[in-house]
């Protein structure tokens, strides 16, 4: 829009330009008429960043500079001698009123805003700040009006924007205040209504504020709590650890979970579980009353301890019974044979052959008793020592042979399906025999009531991955009720009328001590399979 270069020296010559008596540049104009205008002065006039014009008292342009013509877009030359009304009709009324006022008063009028427009309306937004000075002739008669017009559009816009911005800011401030007030209210609600103990303290642990939950939980009014540390409330046993925790917190570390007891006003203690965060010079902490939970935990611990004790005693009793029975069997035979031997020899005549047989049996049973003790010791020597390489197939055959009588008495047929190339297992023979024996006995027991089908007990061995071997014992019994499956390996769980519920629990612990696994599955249409896997040397 701005045309800087356009300032031809086209000084208006036409029209009767009155002699301006003003002190400033325009005042030179009349002189220009009289004498040749100074070229420098003309240049200033043409290039001044403010609009300049000299109006005759009848509102005709005597002189106008480039800058001012920007209002109407009409060239400088076309202004000269023409009336304001003819060139810029939109402002004519305002200009004419101003000129009339100056003529009347002889006083300058300054600081008038004029909204400039072009005929095509393209500069509708421009605002000019104008100053009107009368130029008086020698006799004090007004010969013209000098007009200075400054384009303040940008300034006005900036001012406007500033006002707008301030208004927006004010509004923002006002809503912010409301929002902050609302949020503060909500936060305060949390602080007030929560049952958790909230506390703000300084880094030394001096309480700066507590929420109402403190009074609700502990009975102490806030006034008794604030301004000092909580040390006086602490259970004597918790003092040291609480102090240590506070030091940690003071050092800038969070407390994720910390429990201590605080004294109530009535002298009892409440268990509190704390979370705390240090932030700058403050510590923010939240404590939850977990007294009921702790009591319940304690009760549970007591029950567990009692149960463990009962279990221990029952296991001991069961073990003792089992050991006693195992040892007293040969001892009973020894004593009976010794007595019999004495009686055979005391007869007349003595029966030496009978007595000899008694002595022979005494010796055999003595060895047997010793073996029993040996195997008990092996049983107790723990699973750490894996024992030598064990031929599991041989073990199965041997164990089936031991149970031969019992199985036959129960009308049970044994089918062996043993893998021919079974790698030896690094397992303890005595312990594994106990497992196999137990599984076979269980299988036999399970089939006791079976009458409608063959009582078949299948023992299978197989090599599985990585040197491991698996042994399965399958029966044709009623299977395992789904509700029992989960507990079947638990100690003291039994479905037998006179069972101890120890067998499978012991089996499981032995297999697991060997790094193996014992599982059970029900078979369709009937029966159950107990299967254990023993890892090989590779494992």
């Amino acid at each position: 829009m701005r045309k800087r270069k356009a300032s031809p020296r086209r000084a208006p010559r036409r029209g009767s330009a009155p002699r301006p008596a003003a002190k400033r540049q325009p005042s030179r104009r009349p002189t220009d008429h009289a004498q040749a205008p100074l070229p420098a002065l003309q240049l200033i006039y043409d290039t001044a960043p403010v609009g300049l014009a000299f109006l005759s008292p009848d509102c005709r342009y005597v002189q106008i500079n480039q800058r001012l013509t920007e209002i109407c877009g009409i060239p400088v030359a076309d202004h000269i001698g023409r009336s304001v009304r003819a060139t810029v009709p939109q402002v004519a009324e305002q200009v004419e009123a101003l000129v009339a006022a100056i003529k009347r008063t002889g006083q300058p009028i300054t600081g008038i805003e004029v909204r400039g427009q072009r005929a095509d309306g393209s500069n509708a937004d421009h605002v000019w700040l104008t100053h009107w000075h009368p130029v008086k002739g020698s006799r004090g008669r007004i010969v013209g009006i000098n007009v200075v017009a400054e384009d303040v559009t940008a300034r006005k816009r900036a001012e406007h924007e500033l006002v707008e911005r301030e208004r927006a800011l004010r509004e923002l401030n006002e809503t912010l205040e409301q929002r902050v007030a609302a949020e503060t209210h909500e936060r305060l609600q949390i602080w007030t209504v929560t049952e958790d103990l909230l506390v703000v303290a300084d880094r030394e642990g001096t309480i700066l504020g507590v929420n109402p939950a403190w009074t609700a939980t502990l009975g102490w009014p806030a006034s008794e709590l604030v301004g000092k540390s909580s040390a006086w409330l602490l259970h004597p046993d918790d003092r040291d650890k609480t102090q240590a925790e506070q030091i940690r917190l003071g050092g800038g570390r969070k407390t994720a979970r910390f429990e201590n007891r605080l004294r109530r006003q009535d002298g009892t203690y409440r268990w509190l579980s704390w979370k705390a965060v240090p932030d700058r010079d403050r510590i923010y902490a939240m404590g939850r009353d977990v007294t009921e939970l702790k009591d319940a935990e304690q009760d549970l611990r007591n029950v567990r301890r009692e149960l463990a004790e009962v279990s221990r005693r029952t296991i001991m009793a069961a073990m003792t019974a089992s050991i006693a029975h195992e040892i007293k069997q040969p001892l009973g035979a020894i004593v009976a044979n010794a007595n019999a031997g004495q009686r055979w020899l005391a007869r007349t005549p003595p029966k030496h052959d009978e007595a000899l047989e008694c002595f022979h049996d005494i010796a055999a049973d003595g060895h047997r008793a010793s073996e029993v003790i040996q195997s008990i010791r092996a049983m107790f020597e723990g699973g750490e020592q894996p024992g030598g390489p064990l031929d599991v197939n041989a073990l199965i055959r041997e164990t089936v042979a031991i149970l031969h009588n019992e199985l036959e008495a129960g009308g049970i047929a044994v089918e062996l399906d043993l893998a021919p190339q079974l790698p030896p297992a690094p397992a303890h023979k005595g312990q594994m025999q106990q497992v196999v024996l137990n599984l076979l006995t269980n299988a036999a027991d399970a089939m006791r009531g079976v009458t409608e089908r063959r009582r078949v007990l299948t023992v299978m061995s197989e090599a599985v991955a990585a040197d491991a071997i698996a042994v399965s014992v399958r029966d044709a019994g009623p299977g395992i009720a789904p509700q029992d499956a989960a507990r079947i390996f638990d100690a003291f769980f039994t479905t037998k009328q006179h069972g101890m519920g120890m067998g499978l629990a012991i089996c499981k612990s032995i297999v697991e001590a060997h790094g193996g696994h014992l599982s059970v599955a029900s078979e369709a249409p009937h029966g159950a399979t107990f299967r254990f896997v023993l890892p090989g040397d590779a494992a």
Partner: protein
Amino acid sequence: MSVERTSSVPRGDPQPVVFVVDDDESVRKGLASLLRSVGLRAEAFATAGEFLAVKLPHTPCCLILDVRLPGLSGLDFQARLASARIEIPIIFITGHGDIPMTVRAMKAGAVEFLTKPFRDQDLLDAVQVALERDKVRHRSEDAITALREKFATLTPREQEVMACVTGGLLNKQVAAAIGITENTVKVHRGNVTRKMGAKSFAELVRMADLLGVRRQAS
């Protein structure tokens, strides 16, 4: 010393039998040897089933039974024998007995409950008691058998009269009840006493008791 005691078994009686049921072969063998060494006849079995397969002889016998048997416990076996009316005195032996087990066995009629290893004299004493008990049982069974045989020789009318008089009815009441004369009742009564071999009316009443034929006065 116990040899003397065992010899107190009358020679004339058929030889008593002591049965042993224990799954432990050594125990079985040792017990059998001990029993034989004092002149008793012993028969040993590994399982209850094997024992049941044997027909019990008509002589005093007893059973030495291990409480812990494979398959069926000794106590359950005792109950099964009782329900089958096999009344053989039982001596329990066990490797490890507890009080409830002992009480249960004794309540069910066991002669003795011995824990291994036991003193031989305790066992032999128990065997003696058991055989004696069985002998008495045999005797009373024999006596009842004899009574039944005698009772069978009575005519139906005589049996009726015996039932009535031992039940406490007077002769004339009996006559009225059966519909015969009082004199006829007296004749029948004389025949009954003679045929039954009763030495007194009291003995006749006892006989009727054992036979279970006393008619209770209405």
